[in-house]
């Protein structure tokens, strides 16, 4: 029984990691209707920026607050320089750029920061694990941060005019332009926000899995699965999806199929869900008139 509880909490902790990256994927999807494969690598790169600041003597939260706007600028610049010229190009061209970005960020990070594993500090204190050793302070703290980010995104899209304009720009650029929404600015904003959320996710993930240029490769896969499971149009759904993937993966691996088929089980369930409910568990089915 103790073991089961331990596995469950450990699954929630991994789920928190997937959920935070899934949020960044939802953000970019909401803002641009694309899934950015380089999201994980951009987050990893931002985390290195934060680490560099911390190593230079900047206190943690100050480094955090500097890294987020830097990442925002990085995202917005990428949209302006790389994605805007491709606005009318077929979707495959964008996919090509995303993959190119992924490789670029990965190699540049390796070149600048080396491939050696680096520890990343946690702001929540090293201290003894809580609840009888089940969950570390960091896991608890980072889950809280993920929830705060989730709430902000939800409120942003739900209650602000800007959020509405962004959704409109992604959903129907032509009509949005006609009603006066500056579509290009909205897209750049979306990229910036996604990069910022990614940066936060990176800084929350790195203390758990250690920082190296390939840190996000595995995480992105699970985050993607979580986002699809919960519904990529719904931030709350993506977060819940991330947690579900984490829990299924842990419990399935420990008690049902064994560690070799852990990932397979998670992906199998996703395929089933998507077959039955293509928009994901919590996603809205979007009908667009042609």
């Amino acid at each position: 029984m103790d073991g089961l509880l331990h596995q469950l909490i450990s699954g929630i902790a991994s789920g928190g990691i997937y959920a935070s990256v899934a949020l960044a994927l939802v953000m970019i999807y909401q803002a641009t209707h694309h899934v950015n494969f380089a999201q994980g690598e951009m987050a990893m790169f931002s985390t290195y920026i934060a680490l560099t600041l911390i190593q230079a003597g900047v206190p943690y939260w100050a480094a955090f607050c500097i890294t987020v706007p830097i990442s925002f600028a990085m995202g917005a610049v990428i949209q302006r320089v790389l994605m805007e010229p491709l606005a009318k190009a077929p979707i495959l061209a964008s996919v090509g750029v995303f993959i190119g970005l992924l490789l670029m960020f990965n190699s540049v990070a390796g070149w600048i920061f080396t491939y050696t594993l680096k520890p990343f500090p946690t702001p929540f204190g090293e201290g003894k694990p809580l609840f009888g050793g089940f969950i570390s302070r960091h896991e608890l703290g980072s889950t809280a941060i993920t929830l705060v980010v989730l709430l902000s995104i939800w409120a942003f899209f739900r209650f602000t005019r800007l959020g509405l304009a962004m959704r409109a720009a992604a959903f129907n650029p032509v009509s949005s332009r006609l009603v006066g929404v500056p579509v290009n600015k909205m897209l750049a904003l979306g990229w910036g926000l996604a990069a910022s959320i990614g940066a936060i996710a990176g800084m929350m993930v790195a203390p758990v899995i250690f920082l190296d240029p390939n840190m996000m490769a595995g995480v992105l896969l699970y985050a993607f699965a979580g986002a699809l499971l919960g519904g990529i149009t719904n931030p709350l759904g993506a977060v819940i999806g991330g947690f579900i993937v984490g829990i299924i993966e842990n419990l399935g691996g420990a008690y049902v199929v064994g560690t070799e088929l852990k990932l397979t089980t998670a992906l199998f369930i996703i395929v089933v869900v998507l077959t039955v409910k293509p928009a994901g568990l919590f996603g809205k089915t979007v009908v667009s008139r042609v």
Partner: protein
Amino acid sequence: MKRRSLLATAGAALAAAPLARALADTVVGVTATEIKIGNIMPYSGPASAYGAIGHGHVAFFKRLNEQGGVGGRKVNFITLDDGYSPPKTVEQARRLVEQEQVAFLFNPLGTPNNSAIQKYMNQKKVPHIFLSTGADKWGDPEHFPWTMGWQPSYRTEAQIYAKYIMKNKPAAKVVVLYQNDDFGKDYLIGLKDGFGKDYAKYVLKEFSFEVTDATIDSQAVSMQATGADTIVTAATPKFAAQMIRKVADMNWKPLHFLTNVSASVGAVITPAGPEKAVGIITSAYAKDPTDPTWDKDAGMIEWRAFMKKYLPDADLTDGGYVFSYGVCTTLLQVLKQCGTDFSRENIIKQAASLKNLVVPTLLPGVIVSTSATNFHPIRQMQLSKWSGKTWELFGDIIEGTGA
């Protein structure tokens, strides 16, 4: 027909008289004044830190040539970059064999990289020797008579851990964490060799993980739940660091054996927390350049003098240079044993005829031996324990159980 073979004999005799005896054998890449040796290293890309090994080789052959070479010939050492990418390794191996016409390939680096060229090298019958990888499959003379490893294989290492456990902790309850690939599975095979028929008695359960997993926390939790008191961890640095930290966080204090692939202080122990790793056991076969034990050691003094003269700007804490010196010394012995017959057949034959060779950078008592059926040159290691600050060697040299 007769005249042609006569001509060939005359030609060979003219080119290099001492080679005439080996007429049936293939002599490529060797002239009266030179031996051409090929090598492939990751000078760029994710494993570029290992490039130090290649730089060490270049310096070693420079010194050899200054001292007059070997077998009356200078070494022409050609080393190419594959960026640690196996398709590139194939391309470079072809270039070395077909275009540069090297006598043999020496010490190409990486398990996937060497796997990619092993068949080709054996089809072409070009010696592919003393590889920079610890996979066990390089010692398979029956199927791959042209390929030979050098360092102790992962399998040998696991045999040594099993041997130690059986002798010092006969009531141990062991769990294994292994990476689900060739590297991790070599450890399982080694433990099976080592424990033999008692395997099921010692090992409660094996836990695998995929390199794509984000964490191994779930496995660590299950491992503790088995009630085991001994762990063998066969994981690459990132997962090894996670394992060390998770075991400490769970307040679990097992006897922990860690693959020497992940024994790096900088890449594993420091990120995980040096205090959390206290008591972890790994194994070594070469002298650690940062260990003060070897300050007055003749072999390491020889190595440091070499480094000072030929690689004055190199980082002396980088084990890659120690590795390079050891493997080059072994090759030099093979070339000396060849005498003047540098046919490919004789090179591989001499590589498989090393008798109790002492290499200055290997731990005292570790010897290099090969035979026609033993293509595992180094099969002995010594255990070492993390004290909180350094790895400390302890106990005797232990030899692996298999061939």
